[in-house]
């Protein structure tokens, strides 16, 4: 299993470099402008790289080969979830570093707001991953990419509609309650998603 995770990280080596340059650019442009969405982008971009690793695997017909090694199907699936976890958490840590250094440089004070953005985006990234991975296992990375767009559009549409209908959203409620709800939702989603992916993958023929 360690080998599988290592394989994905080694594979992303090149991508990490490109991403690093992009992030530097974003940081330079957005932080002075006081735009905090750069933190979200870093996390989402890293999380999305799990899809890149699966595309690479498909290209090399890696799964067929890996399963001739002492690697179980369960380990194959679990390793992808762990890679997702590693990537998102690294994204969060990176965002935090960028946040601290960035705000220091431009002379703003590091606010709780940045921390909150990072936390929430981290959870959102994990939720998206949980939706994506079973879709990829079922339909392949290419088709799933299109579905990912839907994954983005549907919740955005719902939020848009909610705003339109002027349903009062209790903004002032206890933020801790929201946070624990979100964390619980993410964890349950991850577990369900893993179970589903495993079920799909165990039946797969190569």
């Amino acid at each position, binding site marked *: 299993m360690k080998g599988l995770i290592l394989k994905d990280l080694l*594979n992303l080596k090149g991508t990490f470099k490109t991403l690093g340059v992009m992030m530097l650019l974003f940081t330079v442009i957005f932080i002075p402008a006081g735009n905090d969405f750069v933190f979200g982008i870093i996390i989402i971009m890293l999380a999305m790289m799990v899809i890149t690793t699966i595309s690479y695997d498909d290209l090399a017909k890696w799964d067929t080969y890996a399963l*001739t090694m002492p*690697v179980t199907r369960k380990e194959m699936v679990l390793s992808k979830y762990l890679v997702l976890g590693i990537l998102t958490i690294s994204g969060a840590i990176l965002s935090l570093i960028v946040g601290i250094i960035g705000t220091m440089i431009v002379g703003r004070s590091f606010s709780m707001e940045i921390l909150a953005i990072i936390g929430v985006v981290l959870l959102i990234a994990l939720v998206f991953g949980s939706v994506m991975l079973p879709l990829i296992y079922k339909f392949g990375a290419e088709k799933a990419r299109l579905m990912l767009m839907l994954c983005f559009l549907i919740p955005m549409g719902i939020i848009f509609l909610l705003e339109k209908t002027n349903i009062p959203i209790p903004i002032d409620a206890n933020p801790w309650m929201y946070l624990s709800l979100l964390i619980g939702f993410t964890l349950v989603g991850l577990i369900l998603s893993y179970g589903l992916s495993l079920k799909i993958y165990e039946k797969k*023929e190569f």
Partner: protein
Amino acid sequence: MTNALEIQNLNKNYGDFQLKNVSFAVPKGSIVGFIGENGAGKTTTLKAILNLVSRDSGAIEMMGMDTIKEEKKIKENIGVVLDGCNFHDNLNTGDISKMMGCIYKNWNPVIYNKYLGKFKLPENKKFKEFSRGMKMKLQIGVALSHEPTFLILDEATSGLDPIVREEILDVFMDFIQDEEHSILISSHITSDLDKIADYIVFIHQGEILLKEEKETLLDGMGVLKCGIEEFNKLDKDEYIRYRKNQFGYEILVKDKRGIKKKYPEAIVDGASIEEIMLFYIKGEK
């Protein structure tokens, strides 16, 4: 003597294609050549052996262990090369060693480096710059570096030039010097199997048509060339298949010496595996 691999009545139905009661064995210490046309079921059989596809029925044992129950233990001890390169273009040979060291308990970097040197594979080059021959040699080197006792090779020599193929066949011959080692190699380049195989297993439309020691095959079978009169004189059980062409008949016979004795004036040549395969598929009964 135990078998490295034993397949009994393997069945797998894909609707338009099926494996029908495939049974054969790979005796320890031998090289078994698994031949057949494209689409005959070679790769499907190999995939069923490796549990890459599920089977409808049948029992498969490797090294005396059931391939479903003891899957992990078996896979520690086999080396597999599939058709094409399965390593990602962005990696290099060092990455593979790091990765495989985590996957196989007995991954041996010394052996791996020995093969890299032997095959002259560059160390700091990404695989996307490797030629097809280099990629295949890499796959074979990797398959041998965790000291397996059984190699399963799917078209490992096809698409390669004669020099690379020769190099690779030499490595297989070296591997088989240890009597505990065995190889199952599928190929449609039958001349390679003429050189190295001890047994031939021939699959056609999902069924095993022939399994025989190679020497027995090549020693016994022959191609008789004659006209229609002589052909009509032949007993049905003296030949296996025949083909008609504009010059007369070509007949694959079971016992070329017997035929020579019986019809001293007839021309009987030896048959290569390729000819045998062609007769079975294209010839008439």
